Each structure stands twice: as C-alpha cells, then as structure tokens.
C-alpha cells in the first residue's frame, strides 16, 4: 500500500496537493492551511501530489502506479495556474518590473565579477565555451550555411533583448553594430564603461562562440567602438 509523507517544514500551504488528489487523501489544517495526510488508506499511488508539489516536500513510498494523473490536461492547467505564467504577466506593475530589473542587474553583475575574480584572464575562454555549448540548443542554425542568413537568424533569436545590424566583409569578417542591448542598462547602472565592462566582454565572447560553432570557423572578437552603440568585429582565425 502506498504511504504518503509530508515534510511539514517544507509545506507552504499552497493547497495544490489537496486540490489535485483524486482520492482526497489530504486535508488542510484550519489554522495554518498546511497540508496533512488525512486518509492514508485511500492513496492509490498516482504520485500527482509529488509531481505538483512546488516545495518538493511530498513523497510517496511503496507506490504502485495506477494512472498518470498528473499528465491529464486539466491538471497541467492547474500547474500552469500555480506557476502563474499567464496571470503574472497581466498583474505585473511597473514597480514590479523595476524591482525585478534591479534584482537581475545585481545578480548578473555578481556573476560576471565572480567569473573574473576566479578565472582571471581565463574568463573570456569560459564565455566562448558557453557560446559553443549554447549553440547546440539552436539546432536550426546549423542548417544555415550562409553567414548572412545565420546572422539574421541570430538577430531573431536575440530579438527580446538585443538588436544589431550585421555586415559581412569579403574576407568573411563580421561587423555587428548593436542599436539595442539588454546589458547596456545593467552596465551603465553600475557606473562601468559600456562595451568594455566585464559583462560586455563576456557577451562578446559568448557571441563569438556562437558564430564559431555555427560557421565551423574560429572567430575572434575585437571591439571597434562603444560610443552610443557597440560595434564589434568578428574575424575568423586561420
């Protein structure tokens, strides 16, 4: 017989397990709304509660799976509701946006600083490798043989945070001029020089890693100008 256990310190009274359980194993206590196992014998071991619990504080032992309840569509909708994918965007205020932006700025800046602190001059190589690895998550780009088309594809992929104009020289060198950059505000807010800050260099190398992976050539990056707009030149190494 399946045995359900709730780690009480992890429960955050969301009530999802109570709602999803097809056999009503759980109750919520009236005072704190914490979930508790009220009808242990009714558990059929569907593990829907384990799957759904956002705190991962639920476990089901000795379960013999009956049906994949958690894959039913209405339960997926329940998970979606909890994750607030749709409502959250509707309910966000401008203050929420600024709070989230400030939080992200601090984190991303700390990440860049830590990379440089630990890796020293090696941080650029790490960013290039990150670009190489990220490329594998964009498989459609590998099917784009022309460099111009590849850059157009990257522009579409990065459209949420970046916009750039790309020019390909006869020797295959690529010049990118960024008219919009999500990192610009982050760097400027920290009082650093846009284009030459650690975060900027990490992104430039990351981008070089992407282009290198898709084109099959090793592209090195040089920053040409940073006044107003960042312009970078990516040159294939022989």
């Amino acid at each position, binding site marked *: 017989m399946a045995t359900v256990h709730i780690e009480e310190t992890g429960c955050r009274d969301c009530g999802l397990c109570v709602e999803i359980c097809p056999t009503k194993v759980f109750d919520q206590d009236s005072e704190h709304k914490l979930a508790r196992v009220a009808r242990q014998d009714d558990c059929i071991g569907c593990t829907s509660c384990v799957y759904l619990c956002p705190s991962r504080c639920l476990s089901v032992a000795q379960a013999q799976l009956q049906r994949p309840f958690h894959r039913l569509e209405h339960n997926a909708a329940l998970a979606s509701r909890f994750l607030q994918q749709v409502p959250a965007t509707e309910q966000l205020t401008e203050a929420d946006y600024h709070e989230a932006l400030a939080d992200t700025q601090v984190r991303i800046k700390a990440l860049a600083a830590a990379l440089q*602190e*630990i*890796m*020293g*001059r*090696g*941080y*650029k*190589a*790490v960013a*290039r*490798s990150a670009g*190489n690895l990220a490329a594998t998550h964009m498989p459609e780009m590998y099917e784009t043989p022309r460099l111009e088309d590849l850059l157009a594809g990257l522009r579409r992929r990065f459209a949420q945070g970046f916009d750039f104009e790309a020019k390909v020289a006869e020797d295959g060198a690529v010049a990118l001029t960024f008219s919009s950059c999500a990192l610009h505000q982050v760097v400027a807010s920290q009082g650093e020089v846009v284009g030459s800050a650690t975060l900027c260099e990490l992104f430039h*190398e990351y981008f070089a890693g992407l282009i290198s992976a898709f084109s099959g050539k*090793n592209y*090195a990056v040089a920053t040409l100008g940073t006044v107003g707009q960042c312009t970078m030149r990516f040159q294939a*190494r022989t």
Partner: protein
Amino acid sequence: MASRTERMQDILRGLRGASPEIIGAAVVSIDGFIVASVLPSEVDEELVSGMAAAMLGVGERISSELMASTMEQVYVRSEKGYVVLNAVGGDSVLVVLTSKDAKLGLVFIEVKRRCAELAKAVAAAA
C-alpha cells in the same frame, strides 16, 4: 620561410618525440584558441583550448593571490596520466598530455626547454 604556426608545430613535434610517454601537446592562447597542436585525433581541441585557457587564468589568480607571484606551471594527475600546463610568454600556455608512466622530472625539463623555444617563436612573430 616557415610561418609562426609551422615553427611552433615543429617544436611541439620535437617535444612529443622526446618521450614515448608524451601523448600530445598544444599551445593555446589566453583567449582559448589553439595556436599549434599535436594532440591525438580523438582529443577535442576546442574543449582542450577552452579548459587550458581557463586553467591558465585560475592558475594566475591563485599564484598572485596566494603567493604574490606569477604562475609558471599547473599540473593535473589522474589515474591514467598527467596534464601539464606551462606558461609560454605572457599570453599563451603549453599543454602537455602524458601517460601515467611518464618520468615527470624529464617531462618538466623538456617542457621548460620547449617553452623557451616557443616563447621565442611567439616573440619573433609579434
């Protein structure tokens, strides 16, 4: 006249030929690019160059922070052999792979000698 890469390639071949326990070698720039290489074909050069550059960076940081000194060498011992990284000039690193039976003292002497030659090749091209 041989190009810089060809000269470095020759030096690496000489290094590899110095001992049967030396499996391969490469010169990697601090940016993570392979400058010259005689690595076995099954070794992923891109991966090695990225890791070597990162390790050079970490080695430099550790040397400067803990010993207030410049980094000369990093070496890694595994069950199957050694990886030796030795700075070449200011912006490159020599990576040497050896089997577990390598006499490290001899490898270090050879690495030191070849690094001096490689540094000259790098400086001549600059």
